[in-house]
C-alpha cells in the first residue's frame, strides 16, 4: 500500500511557495533593470514642462512654454542654435542630448500646488519624463521640488523668488537659476539709498504666502541696515483684488515709502490703487512719497500700464541687455514669436540648456550624476554674466538687475530700463545665512 503525501492542502502550499519564488526575481528585476527613474532606453528622451496654462499666470506660463519649445528646437539642431552658440560650455552639439532626440510633454500647474504636483506626477509616471521644470510661483515650485525629490527625477525650477526654495525647503534633486528675495534686497538697497536717502520710513504691503514673507523680511532687513525705519508690515490676502482699504491708511502712518511685496495680479492692482490714491504726488516728511516694487516682471508691468513709470524694482534678466548671450536669445526668440522674451522665458530656456549640458558632461541621465555635474558649476554666456551653481544649496549666483519703469517707452515692450547691474559679489550670502537656515539638501535620489 503506497502512502502518498499528496494532499490538496500540500499542493496549495507548494505551489504557493513556488509561485512566490518564481515571482520574486521579477519583482527585483522589474525595479533593478533601470538604474534610476525613467532611464531613457530608446532613441528619445522626454522632458516634462510644468507651467501654468490656465489661471491668473497663464500668460507667463505661455511665455515659459515658448522658451522651452525654443530650447528643445535648439538642442535638436533646429533654428539658429540660440544661446548654445554663446554658452561657455561647448558640449552641446545640436544632436539632442547624449545622442537622443529631445521630446517633451507639458502639464498645467494652474498655479495651485496640488494641481502642479498631480501634473508633474503624471508626467513622471505616465509619460516617463526624466526631468521636470517650470512653475511661476514659489508655492508651486516648493511643492513640485519635493515631489521630484521623492520620485527621483531632477527639478529645474522656473520662476520662483522665495528664499525658501533654496533655503529651508531646498532639495538635493532641485536646482534654481532664478534669483531670490535676499538678492533683490541686496541689489535694491544701495540704489534706494542713493536715490531716496537713508532717512526714510517704509510701509510694507505683503502677499500672505511664502514668497511675500521672505521678500518682506529681506527688504526690511536690507533697508533697516542702511538707516530706514519700517513703520508697518501689513499682510494682504492672496485673493485680494481691491487694495484701497490697505492703501488708505498708508498716508496716515507717517511713512514716505510704500514697498509692495506683491506679484502678478496683486501687484498690478495694488500699484494701480496706490497711484489712483495719488500717493506719488504727495509730500511726506518734506520728501516725495515713493513706491518700490521689489520683484518686477515686464509681463506684469504691462498690466499696470502707465502706473509703473519711475518705480524701482529688481529683475533676473531683461531683454534690453547688450551682452552676446542676451542679444542672441532675444534675436532667436523674437524672430520666432515676434516679441521679446520675458525674464520667465529666459530662466526657463537657460535651465533647459543647463540640464542638457550637465547630462552631456556627466555622460548619463542619472539624477545623481546630473546633480554632481551641476553642483559648483561655473558658466557664462547665458545672459547674466559669469554664474555659479552653488553646491551647498543649488542656487545660482550672478549679477542682479535694478530696473525702473520707463518714463517714455518707445514700444509696448519697452517698459523697464536697467538702472544698475549689481555685481554678483554684492548679492552673495553664506549658505547658512539665517534667512535660508532650517532645511538640508539631503542626498540625491535616483529613484528606482
Amino acid at each position, binding site marked *: 500500500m503506497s502512502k502518498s503525501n499528496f494532499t490538496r492542502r500540500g499542493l496549495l502550499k507548494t505551489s504557493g511557495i513556488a509561485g512566490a519564488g518564481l515571482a520574486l526575481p521579477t519583482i527585483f528585476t522589474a525595479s533593478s533593470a533601470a538604474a534610476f527613474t525613467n532611464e531613457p532606453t530608446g532613441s528619445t528622451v522626454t522632458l516634462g514642462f510644468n507651467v501654468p496654462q490656465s489661471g491668473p499666470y497663464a500668460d507667463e506660463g505661455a511665455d515659459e512654454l515658448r522658451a522651452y519649445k525654443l530650447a528643445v528646437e535648439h538642442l535638436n539642431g533646429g533654428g539658429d542654435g540660440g544661446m548654445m552658440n554663446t554658452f561657455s560650455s561647448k558640449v552641446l552639439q545640436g544632436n539632442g542630448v547624449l545622442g537622443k532626440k529631445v521630446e517633451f510633454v507639458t502639464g498645467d500647474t494652474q498655479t495651485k500646488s496640488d494641481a502642479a504636483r498631480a501634473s508633474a506626477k503624471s508626467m513622471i509616471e505616465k509619460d516617463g519624463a526624466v526631468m521636470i521644470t517650470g512653475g511661476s510661483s514659489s508655492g508651486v515650485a516648493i511643492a513640485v521640488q519635493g515631489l521630484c525629490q521623492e520620485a527621483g527625477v531632477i527639478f529645474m525650477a522656473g520662476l520662483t523668488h522665495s528664499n525658501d526654495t533654496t533655503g529651508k525647503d531646498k532639495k538635493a534633486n532641485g536646482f534654481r537659476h532664478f534669483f531670490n528675495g535676499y538678492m533683490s534686497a541686496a541689489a535694491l538697497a544701495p540704489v534706494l539709498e542713493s536715490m531716496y536717502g537713508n532717512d526714510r520710513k517704509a510701509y510694507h504691503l505683503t502677499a500672505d504666502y511664502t514668497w511675500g514673507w521672505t521678500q518682506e523680511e529681506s527688504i526690511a532687513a536690507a533697508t533697516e541696515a542702511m538707516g530706514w525705519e519700517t513703520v*508697518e508690515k501689513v499682510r494682504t490676502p492672496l485673493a485680494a483684488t481691491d487694495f484701497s482699504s490697505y492703501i488708505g491708511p498708508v498716508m496716515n502712518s507717517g511713512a514716505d515709502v510704500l514697498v509692495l511685496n506683491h506679484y502678478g495680479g496683486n501687484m498690478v492692482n495694488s500699484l494701480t490703487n496706490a497711484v489712483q490714491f495719488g500717493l506719488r504726488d504727495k509730500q*511726506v516728511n518734506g520728501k516725495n512719497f515713493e513706491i518700490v516694487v521689489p520683484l518686477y516682471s515686464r509681463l506684469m508691468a504691462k498690466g499696470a500700464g502707465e502706473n509703473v513709470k519711475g518705480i524701482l524694482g529688481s529683475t533676473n534678466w531683461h531683454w534690453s541687455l547688450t551682452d552676446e548671450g542676451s542679444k542672441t536669445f532675444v534675436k532667436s526668440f523674437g524672430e520666432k514669436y515676434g516679441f521679446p522674451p520675458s525674464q520667465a522665458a529666459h530662466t526657463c530656456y537657460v535651465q533647459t540648456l543647463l540640464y542638457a549640458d550637465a547630462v552631456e558632461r556627466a555622460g548619463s541621465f542619472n539624477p545623481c550624476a546630473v546633480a554632481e555635474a551641476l553642483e559648483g558649476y561655473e558658466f557664462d554666456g547665458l545672459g547674466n554674466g559669469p554664474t555659479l551653481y552653488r553646491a551647498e544649496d543649488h542656487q545660482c549666483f550672478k549679477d542682479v538687475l535694478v530696473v525702473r519703469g520707463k518714463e517714455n517707452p518707445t514700444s509696448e515692450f519697452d517698459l523697464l530700463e536697467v538702472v544698475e547691474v549689481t555685481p554678483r559679489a554684492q548679492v552673495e550670502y553664506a549658505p547658512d545665512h539665517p534667512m535660508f537656515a532650517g532645511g538640508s539638501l539631503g542626498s540625491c535620489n535616483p529613484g528606482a
Partner: protein
Amino acid sequence: MDAILLQILNGLDKGSAYALIALGLTLIFGTLGVVNFAHGALFMIGAFCAVTLQRILTLSTITIDETQKDFLGNPLKVKTPYVESWFGPETGAAIIDWSVPLAILFAIPVMLLIGYVMERGLIKHFYKRPHADQILVTFGLAIVLQEIIKAFYGANPIPTGAPAAFRGSFDFGSMFGFDPNTIIYPYWRMVYFAFAAVIIGGVFAFLRYTTFGMVVRAGMADRETVELLGINIDRRFTIMFGVAAAVAGLAGVMYAPINSPNYHMGMDFLVLSFVVVVVGGMGSLPGAVLAGFLLGILEAFASMNEIKAIFPGIDQIIIYLVAIIIILTRPRGLMGRPGVMEE
C-alpha cells in the same frame, strides 16, 4: 476719527459694486426665480466692453519709421490711431482718453443682447428645474464665458485708464479740518459711487413709476394672477433679465479704471454678491442695496491694522461672519419678505 472716515469712503465704492451686482441678481431671482451664478461673468463682460471699445478706438494705421529701431534692430513700426487721423490728433486723443465713459453707450446694447440671448437660449429651459440645476448650469456658463474672454484677451490684467481729468485724488481731510493727506480719495471712485447711485435710483424709478415696472412688480408678487389678466409676463421678465445684465455690465464698465480688468474679476465679486443678496433678503431690492453698502464698509473696516491686530485674518472672513450672524438672528435677511425661498 480720520481713519474711520477713510474706511467708510473706501467701503462706498466696493459697496457700490456689490450693490449693483446684487441688485441684478435679486431682479432675476425675483422675476424669473432663477439663481444666476453667471451674473459675475456679466459684470466681467461689461468691463471687457470698456477694453474692447478702447481697442477699437486705438485701431491704427502702421507707418514705418526708418530713424527708429525695434527690439530686433528692424525699422520701428509707428502706430497712429484712425480716430487721430480722422479727427485730428487732439480730438482723437481726447476721444481715446474718454473711452471708458464712452463705453457705457457701447455696453448698453451689447449687454441687453447678451442678456436676451442667455435667457432665451439657455436659462429659460431651467425655470421649472430645481435651484441646484440652475446653479450648476449658470455656474458652467460663467466658466465658459470666462474662458472665451481669456482666449481672446489673455490672462493678464489689461490697463484701462480713467479720463485724465479724473485721475488723482481729492483731499477730504483738509476740507473737514483734518491734517492734509490723512483722508484722500481718488476722483474716479467718487464718480463710481455717484454713477452707482444714479443707476440704482434709475432701476427703482423704472419699477415704481412706469406701467411696465408696475406689471413686473405685480408679476413678482403674484405671477398667476397677472397671467390670468392676459398679460404676457414671460416676455417682460425676459426684458428684465436683459436690464439686470445691463446693470451688471455698466457696473463692470465703470469699474475697469479702478482695477485693470481680467477674465477672473467676475468670480471675485460673484460669491460676495450672493452673500449680499442673502443678507439683504432674497428677492428684496432695497435689501440688496443696503446690504451691499453695509458689507462693503464692514470689509473696509476689517482691513484696518488696528482691527487686524486684535483679530488676525478678520479681513478675509468678516463678510461671512456677519452673514452667519444675520441669518441666525433674521433668517429672512435684513429686508426679506415672508414666503420667498421658504417652500
